[in-house]
């Protein structure tokens, strides 16, 4: 059981390494303004995340099966003899570091993608403003042609 847990963690560590590579590639595609490539990478990222999630579910089951009532890997590691803990602690630390690196990179990607969208939206809004009639109340609700005072005026009516 211990070796199955170790294998599972090795697979997760590998997957997170690949995930980080994919996220970096996605960032490169975003900076290279290649949306088609981003779409392809994003599909791979999602699939990899799904696999990592499955590994985690499997790991949890393995941990609970080994140490009944265990909440996480730390509980499992605590039951191991001192000489066996080192490798698991290293794997946990590596997984944590890679996960954090992935999170930072994903955040960067999201920020850049969002900024590009915002930029496009800004230009679209500008275009809308240009084609929309400046005066949106040309005709009042009663159907009468509205009188406008575009300039600030203190007095109204005839003098």
């Amino acid at each position, binding site marked *: 059981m211990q070796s199955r847990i170790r294998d599972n963690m090795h697979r997760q560590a590998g997957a997170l390494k690949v995930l980080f590579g994919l996220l970096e590639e996605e960032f490169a595609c975003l*900076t290279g*303004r290649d949306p088609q490539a981003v779409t392809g990478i994003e599909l791979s990222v999602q699939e990899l995340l799904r696999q990592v999630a499955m590994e985690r579910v499997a790991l949890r089951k393995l941990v609970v099966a080994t140490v009944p009532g265990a909440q996480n890997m730390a509980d499992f590691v605590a039951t191991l003899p001192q000489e066996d803990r080192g490798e698991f602690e290293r794997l946990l630390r590596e997984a944590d570091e890679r996960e954090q690196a992935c999170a930072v990179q994903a955040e960067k990607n999201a920020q850049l993608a969002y900024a590009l969208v915002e930029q496009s939206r*800004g230009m679209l809004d500008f275009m809308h403003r240009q084609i929309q009639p400046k005066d949106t109340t040309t005709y009042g609700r009663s159907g009468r042609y509205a009188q406008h005072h575009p300039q600030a005026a203190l007095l109204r009516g005839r003098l």
Partner: protein
Amino acid sequence: MPGVNSILDIGKLALFASQSAIEVTGNNISNVNTPGYSRQRVNLEESISIDYAPGQLGTGVKATEVFRYFDEFVEEQFTVKVADRNRWDALWQNLRSVDGLFNESSSRGISSAMDQFWNDWQDLTSPGVSTAKREALLGNTRTLLNAIHSTQADMARMQSQMNGFIEQEVEEVNGLLHDIAEINRQINSHDIPGQNNANALLDRRTVLVRELAQRMDIDTIDNGSGNFTVLTKAGQTLVDGQETFEIKFEGPSSTKDLTAGSNFAGDVYFDGSDDFEYTVEVVQDGSVTSNAGGGAALFRVSLDGGRTWMTDEDGNEKHFSARPEGEKVSIGDLKIWFGSETDSGGVATGTLRQGDTFTIVPKEGLYWYETTSSRVNITPQIYSNGADDTRRLTGGSLTGYFHFRDYNVGRYQDRLDAFAKSLAWEVNRLHSQGTGEQKYSDLTGTYAVDSTSAPLGSNSSGLAFADKLQAGNLQIYVYDAASGQMVSNGSLDFGGGANFDPEVHSLDDVVNAINTKFAGTLTAEVASGRLRIKSNDPNNEFAFGTDTSGLLAGLGVNTFFQGSDASSLELNANVVQDPDFIATSHVNGAGETNHGDNTTAKAIAELKDRKVTLSTAREGATSQTLSGYFNNIVGTVGADTAAAEYNYKFHNTLAQNLEDRQEEVSGVNLDEEMGNLIKFQHSYTAAAKLISTADKMLQTVMSLKN
């Protein structure tokens, strides 16, 4: 009136129109690789029609104008993004060098040399031949000091390089502003919108504006033709039509901003230089006086434009007294005082009122001139929370260079100075209370005061470690050199058996206290602002014991280091000349110097893992181990470099995206132009055919008379 002649006219107009279109297409094709060129088109309009039978008959085509394809909105956004991109680009490119400097230092430089330094002190705690160990300590300490000096010197060189870059950029900016104004003038001469568009000049102006945006963040207002205004984002006008305003890169200066009710007749003066601006704000009414008893105005100091104020190590806001030149107040890296409006040594009259503000720029800064006499400080500035001061420049390579020089390298230098200062103080504090293999017969301290009568703990004393002194006393032991027997000993007497008080006692008082206590045995005097102690009897020598006041370390007496920042930190000349002066032991309660106890060496070696207080004027105090603090500097440089790289890539992507969009509108597509060329060639051929047909028709009409 329509007829065969009008067909000739129609043909002629069509011929001219097609010819213009071919010319413009040819111009587009030839400029396919010209940077900043916007593709052009001829605007063709139907000519007037004439009412006639069987109805309105057209009179041909009019080539009304040659216009350029250009998206003003995209361009406006592009200039903003270009300024952001170039700011981060300039910062990133330069931070890479600093990152390399510190990464190297962390593996082979300061970090490893410091480890060796602690190890050497540890070696001195064990019994054995100490001469070799002392020499090894001195040798490795020199390595550590060299690493600190070279890192500091490299950073200073980079700052000075930035000044060169900034100077060059400022010159280019002023050149660009004049060029834009000149093009505005030319556009005004040639441009008749909708009829005679000055497309080439408009393209040229766009290129210049882009070049300007690479150097500083700008806004533009285009009211048509040469009525074109360029402003900084903060609102300073740079070009207004044909008029230009200048920016200048100028040396240190100060300005004052007095409150409405203030009658203060004087000015602020300063010595020294720093990478940050000092905002001095009066918080309590008063005059400029050297009277320590009261009456002096109190002021506070900010290093980020008044957002946050300097605090002491307990986090309380620091207040300083307004003093004349004779009692300059040490604040951060500067010495500040008040003089008359015309003379730094003159007497400032009137009363400083709460709210009176003075701004000191102790470095070269960037200024915008509206007229020859009015100037506005537009030097980029970052508040302590990391936000930009939006009243100054915030974009372009100029901002990147300034931030690199002041905010980044300035901060790293301050931290390295704090590290060196703390290393010197902590080691000296322990070393000064120890004894070496030798005792002294004549010793001069290494830290000087500006005023021998000012309390040593005050900001006016000029002592590097004034803020570290505490109330307390110190022990001096006098021995017979030949027998080693103690002749006299005791702590200093500051009048009626009083202890030393840093807020009251000056260097003169310390001299008197020594002379009073050790009259006939030792003589103390002030030599060039430093404390000198010498034995009256050539057969006597002296050593130092416990010092609860910090006076010995503060005055540089019996210390291991001298100097108080990264560039001035050195080994004390005494220990270099004779390593036997390296204090490894101490004088015990019975007044005996036990050379083998190595108490002092142990205490210094244990400093490695002890948390000490380190502080910078801008960032306040922190408690860390010296190694931890240095590693934090390395970490900060790495994080700043990574952030600059990300920001550059981020803004570059957005800028490229906008450039692509502009290129989609104004770029020349050779396939399209070739298609147009064929189209207009056919039009031209057809128009020519029309003329020859009309000619034949005329021939037919003419032949009727025969």
